[in-house]
């Protein structure tokens, strides 16, 4: 039991530490990063060879769809093969990759070359083939108005050149040769910087370059871990409920009939859930749609609509002007309530555009945008401080319930 607790605490701590560091640690190593304004760039390139055929060089230039796309063969959650688009820095000599260029529209075909819609002349190099964009199937002879791709499948990367960039740093021009793990971050005045490819950095852009840190590159893995844990929690919840209710049924405890309803609801829910994947028009799908759109929808909205009656009765009892503050609250509540309905506009629009600031909807909007915003910001700051304190307690296993 003690070891289970220690494992739980350890896992919680490591997961929490990762997520905290993910936010704190920048995408590039601070000591080894450079920041400046882009003067010039030398594009990156990659040399690829298919079998014994001569190697083909792919320059990475910012020309929209004509920029090479590197695809690595992976398997999805169901074990089916899939191709994942990766940046140049994730491949090296010996990597087995598929390179694609396109899709582009064919304007005309001239012998072995194709003229694209923008007037670019494209021909095949050794190991490359034409792929039809719509069907994703190889095409022997391209035809005009076809959407085409160039593909060099299952080829080995011979070498990669990440390119170089000339930055203006404190008035000096410095050339930086990029490494395989170098990240180029385009900085903006607002928000965080975003990773760009070298050819996407234009003269005048403020960028930061440096070796990639572990955290930014593994965000997707962390997100998937999070997804798996969250989904598992649902499964465990269902299992736990099932165990509790089966015990009630076996022991015939008071209220056991309600446990029968629980299992009936689970069976109905699972059947309905499976039915939604059935083809449109099938009986299974019709059953699923009937349960969800006709039964659950009506029952849920009926239950929710009861709130309107409770709220009306609660407002009648609660909005009593006993103090000055209560009067203020009631006045603003009444303005907001009328201002949100067509009555507010109907009652005050006669004043004309000149006095539109006095229209009830505009007064209600002012209440939302100014006093409400000010109060809410203060409230959120307070809540967040409390949330951080609670989160820290959970993370460090100081919360009683965590044990």
């Amino acid at each position: 039991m003690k070891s289970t607790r220690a494992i739980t605490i350890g896992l919680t701590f490591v997961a929490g530490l990762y997520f905290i560091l993910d936010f704190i640690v920048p995408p590039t190593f601070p000591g080894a990063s450079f920041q400046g304004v882009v003067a010039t760039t030398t594009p990156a390139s990659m040399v690829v060879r298919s079998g014994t055929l001569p190697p083909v060089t792919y320059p990475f230039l910012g020309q929209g769809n004509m920029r090479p796309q590197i695809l690595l063969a992976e398997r999805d959650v169901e074990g089916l093969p899939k191709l994942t688009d990766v940046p140049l820095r994730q491949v090296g000599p010996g990597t087995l990759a598929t390179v694609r260029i396109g899709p582009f529209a064919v304007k005309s075909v001239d012998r072995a070359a194709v003229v694209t819609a923008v007037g670019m002349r494209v021909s095949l190099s050794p190991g490359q083939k034409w792929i039809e964009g719509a069907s994703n199937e190889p095409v022997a002879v391209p035809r005009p108005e076809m959407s085409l791709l160039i593909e060099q499948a299952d080829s080995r990367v011979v070498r990669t050149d990440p390119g170089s960039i000339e930055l203006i740093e404190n008035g000096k021009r410095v050339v930086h040769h990029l490494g395989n793990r170098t990240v180029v971050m385009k900085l903006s005045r607002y928000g965080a910087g975003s990773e760009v490819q070298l050819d996407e950095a234009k003269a005048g852009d403020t960028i930061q370059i440096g070796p990639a840190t572990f955290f930014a590159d593994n965000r997707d893995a962390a997100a998937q871990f999070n997804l798996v844990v969250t989904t598992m929690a649902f499964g465990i919840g269902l299992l736990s409920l099932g165990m509790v209710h089966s015990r009630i049924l076996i022991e015939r405890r008071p209220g056991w009939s309600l446990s029968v309803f629980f299992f009936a609801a689970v069976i109905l829910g699972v059947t309905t859930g499976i039915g939604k994947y059935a083809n449109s028009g099938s009986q299974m799908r019709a059953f699923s749609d009937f349960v969800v759109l006709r039964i659950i929808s009506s029952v849920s909205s009926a239950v929710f609509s009861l709130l309107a009656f409770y709220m009306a009765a609660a407002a009648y009892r609660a909005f009593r002007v006993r103090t000055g503050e209560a009067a203020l609250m009631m006045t603003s509540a009444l303005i907001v309530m009328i201002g949100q309905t067509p009555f507010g506009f109907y009652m005050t629009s006669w004043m004309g555009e000149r006095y539109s600031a006095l229209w009830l909807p505009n007064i209600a909007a002012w209440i939302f945008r100014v006093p409400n915003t000010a109060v809410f910001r203060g409230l959120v700051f307070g809540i967040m401080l409390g949330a951080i304190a609670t989160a820290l307690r959970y993370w460090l296993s100081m919360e009683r319930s965590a044990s």
Partner: protein
Amino acid sequence: MLNLLARLDVVQRKTIYIVLFVTAAIPFLVPIRMPLYIWKETRNAFTITSKRQPKKVVAICSNWVPGSQSENWAQYEAIVAQCMITDTPFIVFAMDADPMAPQFAEAINLRQARRYGRVYGRDWVNLGLTRGAPLTMGAIGRSVKAVFQSDFQHTPTQDFEKLPLMKDIRDVRDFSCLWVVDYQPDSNWVVFLDPTTKLPVLFACAGIVSTGYYPYISSGQLKGMMVGTRGAAEYEELLRQTFGKAFDDSGMRGQKLLVPLAFGHLVIIFFVIAGNVGMVAKRRQKAVETQYGGRRP
């Protein structure tokens, strides 16, 4: 008179319920049209969604379930109608929502698609449900297909023959805007989906929770908002003004529900005022009784 007014201090709950029910039912029996004032947040959201950008899609996170359908259904249907009229492709998904959420969204998508002749896979894709916010939000921003490897009917998102729309969708840069339709949308979308904050994020929320999003509107992090049934009705009005007869409003719920809602608000306001009048009258009645030694004058 004072005695009559004092009775308003304690109105029975069932009286309030009956009056509210009857008043809210009137507009369903007698159709009433009322003038609409369109709020700035709704107009901004409409303008942003209207800006069709080549090879970009409108992303919709549709998390609503029947409980909030009186507000979210109308909002979602108005957004879908706008996308379909303007031939703007869109993807829809649910995040940390009820598993039924994609099914509700799809029922509306199909209804609107029949009106405007749109085709699944080419004009819209329903990617189903995912979990794990806010980390998954960031993951969607970096690669849509990595998070959603299949659509809600298990068609792989790499199958461009069945889902040609997915061919051009890689990451957040392929979105023209993000709509989050939920009773209470998760404000983490503002922070995590696009850290560069270039993507306009728009919320469609219930009226009662809208107060919490105005700080984001003021700071410019939220570019627009559709608030409750009112917002949906305004959006429908904008669709009508912009597209005229091309916009088929049959079965649209926004304006249909707004008038009963307004009548309901009036009932609540009436009872709030009545309660206060009753309270004052009762106090005065007591003062008078005290003055006359407990006897009525």
